[in-house]
């Protein structure tokens, strides 16, 4: 065994990395001594582009900020505009938004299933879950016209009403999904090798987690049931019955996996409730002529619980027809840089990609 350290560049071209980013590792033997995240391979300058586009044009590009789960971006943008402008949203639109957000969460978690299992070498899981994810994308396609980018939740409501019989289709998909989730459990969570790989790896100190800026499933994996849907309820989440998973675990990869496993079931529960309670009425509070649509001076800090954690926008309007500043803060901004760099020290190289997947590092939202 060699004694000196080796520099290992994990990425940007690397099958194990979650997207287009790079982690520079100093390894001794099989153990990581130092990790450094390098980002910027996906930087498009969204915040600059939004300064050049008017309020409605900006709405079409925000969904591109996060690829696996674009809807929290639309939701944030719409809610931020509504908060600054004081625009009312019809009740039906709120329910539809919640449904879309929860479906997006499910789709994102199913991609996570594939990533988490795939980084541990269990490719069958990814084939199943990413394949089944298409059923959710089909629903999106019928509702919004797009599989991945929906551009559906916009200021004032949603872009289209639900198609005929859509609720039944959603319920049918949910029934199917629930059946499949049990099979996923048998394949992944009951697998003793996966348990051995996941337990005791990537431990976040629960006492420090809040201070370090950890949010979302990693924070809930520490036994701190923090969720924007409960803490700062938006849309109609305060009228719905769901639970935030409270895992009494080790705050390791395994605990985070359990959080996501339970949250998928909660999401299915929420979607069912939303379909059941869906009010009739308007779905859209019409905005004025978008070319002349100015928004009064003001700022807003809005946040949405995405599949990876709290997704926040800080939006500033200077009273003109274009946003002054839209500052995006994705959960991976903290998880993928400071937290990851600290968690990886002392871990095995084999677990680097595994931990990254469990934190949900997503480069497009780190660098926008």
């Amino acid at each position, binding site marked *: 065994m060699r004694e000196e350290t080796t520099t290992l560049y994990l990425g940007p071209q690397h099958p194990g990395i979650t997207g287009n980013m790079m982690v520079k590792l100093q390894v001794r033997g099989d153990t990581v001594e130092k990790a450094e995240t390098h980002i910027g391979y996906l930087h498009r300058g969204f915040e600059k582009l939004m300064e050049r586009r008017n309020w409605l044009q900006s709405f079409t590009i925000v969904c591109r900020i996060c690829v696996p789960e674009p809807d929290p971006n639309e939701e944030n943008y719409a809610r931020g505009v509504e908060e600054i402008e004081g625009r009312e949203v019809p009740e039906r639109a709120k329910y539809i938004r919640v449904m879309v957000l929860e479906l997006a969460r499910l789709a994102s978690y199913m991609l996570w299933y594939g990533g988490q299992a795939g980084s541990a070498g269990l490719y069958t899981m990814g*084939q199943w879950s990413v394949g089944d994810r298409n059923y959710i994308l089909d629903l999106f396609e019928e509702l919004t016209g797009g599989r991945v980018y929906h551009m559906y939740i916009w200021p004032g409501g949603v872009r289209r009403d639900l198609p005929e019989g859509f609720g039944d289709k959603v319920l049918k998909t949910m029934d199917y999904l629930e059946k499949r989730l049990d099979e996923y459990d048998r394949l992944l969570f009951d697998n003793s090798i996966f348990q051995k790989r996941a337990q005791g790896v990537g431990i976040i100190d629960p006492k420090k987690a809040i201070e370090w800026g950890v949010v979302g499933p990693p924070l809930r994996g520490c036994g701190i049931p923090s969720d924007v849907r409960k803490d700062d309820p938006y849309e109609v989440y305060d009228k719905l019955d769901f639970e935030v998973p409270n895992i009494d675990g080790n705050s390791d990869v395994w605990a985070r996996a359990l959080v996501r496993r339970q949250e998928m079931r909660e999401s299915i529960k929420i979607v069912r409730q939303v379909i059941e309670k869906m009010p009739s009425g308007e779905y859209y509070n019409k905005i004025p002529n978008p070319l002349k649509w100015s928004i009064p001076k003001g700022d807003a800090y809005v946040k949405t619980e995405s599949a990876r954690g709290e997704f926040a926008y800080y939006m500033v309007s200077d009273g003109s027809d274009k946003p002054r500043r839209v500052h995006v803060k994705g959960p991976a901004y903290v998880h993928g840089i400071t937290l990851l760099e600290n968690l990886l020290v002392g871990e095995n190289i084999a677990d680097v990609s595994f931990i990254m997947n469990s934190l949900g590092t997503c480069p497009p939202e780190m660098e926008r």
Partner: protein
Amino acid sequence: MDLLIKILGALATVVLAFTVGMTYGGLTRKVIARIQNRIGPPWYQNFLDNLKLILKKEAVHHGFMQHVAPLWLIAMSITTLMFIPILKDGAWFTNFNFDGDLILLLYLMVIGSLGMALGAGQTGNPNSAIGVTRGLTQMVGFEIPWVMALVALMIQYETTSITGLMDAAEAQGTWLVFSSPFATIAAILAMPGMFRYSPFDIVGAPAELASGPVSEFGGKYLSTMMTSGAIFAFVKLTLYVDIFFGGASNLVELVVKTFILYMFPVLWGAVSPRFRTEQAVKFFWGWPVLFGIIGLIQASF
């Protein structure tokens, strides 16, 4: 005339091993695809992949050893193949085996990996270097139960030749899997490690090491290694069938037995994540070694 048959037989063996090995590779992908709810590639996909790799117009190498490593591997695979009786009594496929061949085989099967280690080391890719280290560590893991199983058989039947073991099986009327079950279990548990299928595929794990030792090998080098891998898979399967499952008296029997045996690591791999290196070694030194010891005790008394 004898010599001619020997030479032709050897050539036929290589062709057979290549064809069967590659087809098994294709069928494996098909089987795994069916498990994964997919149609999967056609059974001849691996032949096409291999052909394409040979036909690549360029293949960069980083020095002499990288040139040699794939050739080394394929030479070792063919040499090993030569010492294995493919069919029980045929004049054609008995090849060059002699009395001491089981011990020789143990060495030959290791030497291929060492050549690979040298070749991968020269590419300068840290992924390769780490992959090789892991490969050698893992080899230490699975070699122990495997050698224990073979030694148990050698003691029990007082022979070190494969044909001797096959004769013993014929003489007692049952396959060795029934007369020395513990050694067989130890050997079979070591098998996925030998094939480097999940859960023991950490050596070339794409998610960490970008396919590990082979990451700098492309074009004709990769093709040579694929060929060598196919032949070596056939070698290992035939060896297992010869030793534990009574060998085969015709090709159909051989193919059926090896394929059924092959499905064990494949199916296990399809539903397993991979072990880390130390976990893999721990696994091999757990139950498989225990079975090996029981096998040895059974053989001694």
